[in-house]
C-alpha cells in the first residue's frame, strides 16, 4: 500500500489487514505506556484545507502513539488562504521531508491529485475529500461493525470480514463521502447495504452502486438491519429544496424515538446505531437513540484512533523508498 486514497480501490486483503492491525493497535490504549516506537523519526503532516477538529485530533493521536513527529498545517490562516496553490504547499511539505501527508480537503479528488501529481513523494492519506471519500471513517465503521458481528457470531474478529451483515445507511447520501466510502468497503467485506434517503439526496447514477436503495426507512428496518448508520444532514439543504423542512425530514428519514422503539418490537435486539459525528440531534437522530446502549458513537471515536494508527503504520513502516524505486524501474523499462 503506497497511499490510502479511497475504499473503492481497496482490496479485501488490504482492508482486512488494516482492520487486523487496528485490533493490535487498540491494545496499546490499555497499556501502561500508550505509545509505540514504530514510527520514530517519521514526520506526519496533517494538512487540513477544511476544518475538522475531530478528524485532525484523531490522526494526531494516532501518529503520536506511533512516536511520529506531527506537524499540523491548517490551510486556513496560512499561506493557502492567501492563494497558495496545492502544488506549492505540496512542494513545501516535500522540502520539509514529510513522510506522510494526511489531507483533508473540500475539493473531491484533492488527495488523489496530491498523490499522483509528482509534486511530493510522501504517502498520502485521505482524511476526507469533498463529497468523494473518507476511507478511514469507513474503516473505523467496519472495525466497529466487525467487533459487534464477531461478538454476535462468537468468532474471533481477526481475519474476519462482514459476510452476512445487513447495514442500512440513511441520510444525505448525495453529499456524503462517508456513505460512498462505506458502500465500497462494505461490499468488499461482504456485507449487504441498503441506502435510505429522500430521492433528492441520492446521486444520479446510484443505481450502478453495489447496494439496494430505498426511500422508506421503516420498511428497510422491517426487513431486518444489523447496523443502522445515520448520516449527518445539514439543515441548510432545506434552502436548496432538497427537502421541504427539517421537521418533515426528521419524520420520514430521522432515527427518532418511535423507530428506536420499533427495533424492539421488530425483534432486532442486537441492532447497533452508528453515526460518524458530529450529530444533529433531533434532525437525523434523536437524543434517546444517540444515547441508547445500542449507540456505538463513542466506540467509533475510540476505534478511529486504532484504525488510523494501523493505516499510518502500514503505510510508513515498510521500506517505502525501495518500493518506489522498484516502481520507477518497472515503469521506465
Amino acid at each position, binding site marked *: *500500500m503506497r497511499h490510502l486514497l479511497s475504499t473503492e480501490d481497496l482490496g479485501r486483503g488490504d482492508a482486512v*489487514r488494516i482492520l*487486523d*492491525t487496528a*485490533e*493490535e*493497535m487498540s*491494545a496499546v490504549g490499555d*497499556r*501502561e*505506556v500508550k*505509545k*509505540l*516506537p*514504530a514510527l520514530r523519526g*517519521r514526520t506526519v503532516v496533517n494538512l487540513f484545507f477544511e476544518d475538522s477538529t475531530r478528524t485532525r485530533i484523531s490522526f494526531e493521536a494516532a501518529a503520536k502513539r*506511533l512516536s511520529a513527529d506531527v506537524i499540523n498545517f491548517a490551510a486556513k490562516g496560512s499561506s493557502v488562504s492567501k492563494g497558495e496553490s496545492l502544488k506549492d504547499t505540496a512542494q513545501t511539505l516535500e522540502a520539509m521531508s514529510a513522510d506522510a501527508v494526511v489531507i483533508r480537503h473540500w475539493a473531491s479528488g484533492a488527495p488523489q491529485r496530491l498523490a499522483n501529481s509528482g509534486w511530493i513523494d510522501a504517502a498520502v492519506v485521505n482524511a476526507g475529500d469533498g463529497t468523494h471519500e473518507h476511507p478511514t471513517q469507513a474503516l473505523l465503521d467496519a472495525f466497529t461493525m466487525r467487533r459487534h458481528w464477531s461478538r454476535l457470531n462468537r468468532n474471533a474478529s*481477526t481475519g474476519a470480514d462482514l459476510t452476512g451483515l445487513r447495514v442500512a445507511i440513511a441520510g444525505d447520501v448525495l453529499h456524503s463521502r462517508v456513505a460512498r466510502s462505506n458502500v465500497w468497503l462494505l461490499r468488499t467485506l461482504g456485507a449487504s447495504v441498503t441506502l435510505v434517503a429522500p430521492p433528492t439526496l441520492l446521486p444520479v447514477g446510484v443505481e450502478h452502486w453495489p447496494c439496494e436503495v430505498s426511500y422508506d426507512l421503516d420498511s428497510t428496518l422491517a426487513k431486518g438491519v444489523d447496523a443502522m448508520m445515520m448520516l449527518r444532514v445539514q439543515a441548510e439543504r432545506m434552502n436548496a429544496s432538497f427537502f421541504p423542512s427539517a421537521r418533515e425530514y426528521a419524520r420520514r428519514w430521522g432515527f427518532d424515538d418511535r423507530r428506536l422503539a420499533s427495533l424492539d418490537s421488530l425483534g432486532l435486539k442486537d441492532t447497533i446505531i452508528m453515526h460518524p459525528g458530529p450529530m444533529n440531534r433531533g434532525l437525523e437522530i434523536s437524543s434517546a437513540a444517540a444515547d441508547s446502549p445500542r449507540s456505538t458513537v463513542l466506540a467509533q471515536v475510540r476505534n478511529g484512533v486504532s484504525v488510523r494508527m494501523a493505516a499510518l*503504520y*502500514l503505510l510508513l*513502516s*515498510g*521500506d*517505502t523508498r525501495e*518500493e518506489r524505486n522498484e516502481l520507477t524501474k518497472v515503469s521506465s523499462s
Partner: protein
Amino acid sequence: MSTSSTGPTSRVVLTAADIDRALTRIAHEILEANKGPQDLVLLGIPRRGYPLAQRLARKLAATDPGIDPERIVGLLDVTMFRDDLSRQPTRAPGPTQLPSTGIDNKVVVLVDDVLYSGRTIRAALDAIVDLGRPRVVRLAVLVDRGHRELPIRADHVGKNLPTASAEKVRVRLEETDGPANDVVIEAGE
C-alpha cells in the same frame, strides 16, 4: 519450499529428542536460578518462541506440580519495536498476550528459538519496558548461533551452534512447522 523435508545441502543438528532433552535441561536451570517456581513468567517471542515457552512451562509443571503451565506463559510481539522497520517490507504486528498476573515484579524469562544478532531481544526488552516493570528479565533460547551485533547474551541455551553467517539455521516445531520437529542448518547461497 516444503518445510517437512530437507534439501540436499542441509543437515539436521538437533533431532526432536535432542530438542526435548535441551528443554528439560533449561527448565531445570530456570528453577535452579530462580530458587523455585515463584513469580515465574515465560514470554515467548513469535513465532517459534511461543510454542517453546509452552513446552518449557509444561516441563516446569512436571518438575513442580505447583505450577499451572497455562497461567505463566505469555506471547510478546516485538514487531513495533524492531530497529529495521524502515528497512524491511511492512510487517503486520501480531497480538501480545500477557498472563493475567501481569509482569510487574515478576521474573520474566524471554523465550526464543534462535539467538543471532541480538536485535530481536533488544526489541523484546523495549517492548517489556512499555508493558510493565519485571523484577528480573532472563533469556532462554534453543539455539545460540553466535554473530552477536549487540551486547546481549542468553542465560539458558539449548545448544551452542557455531555457524557461518551465510548459513541458515531453521528451527522446525510441530506446532508451527509440523510434522517436522528438528533444527537444521542450510548452506548459504
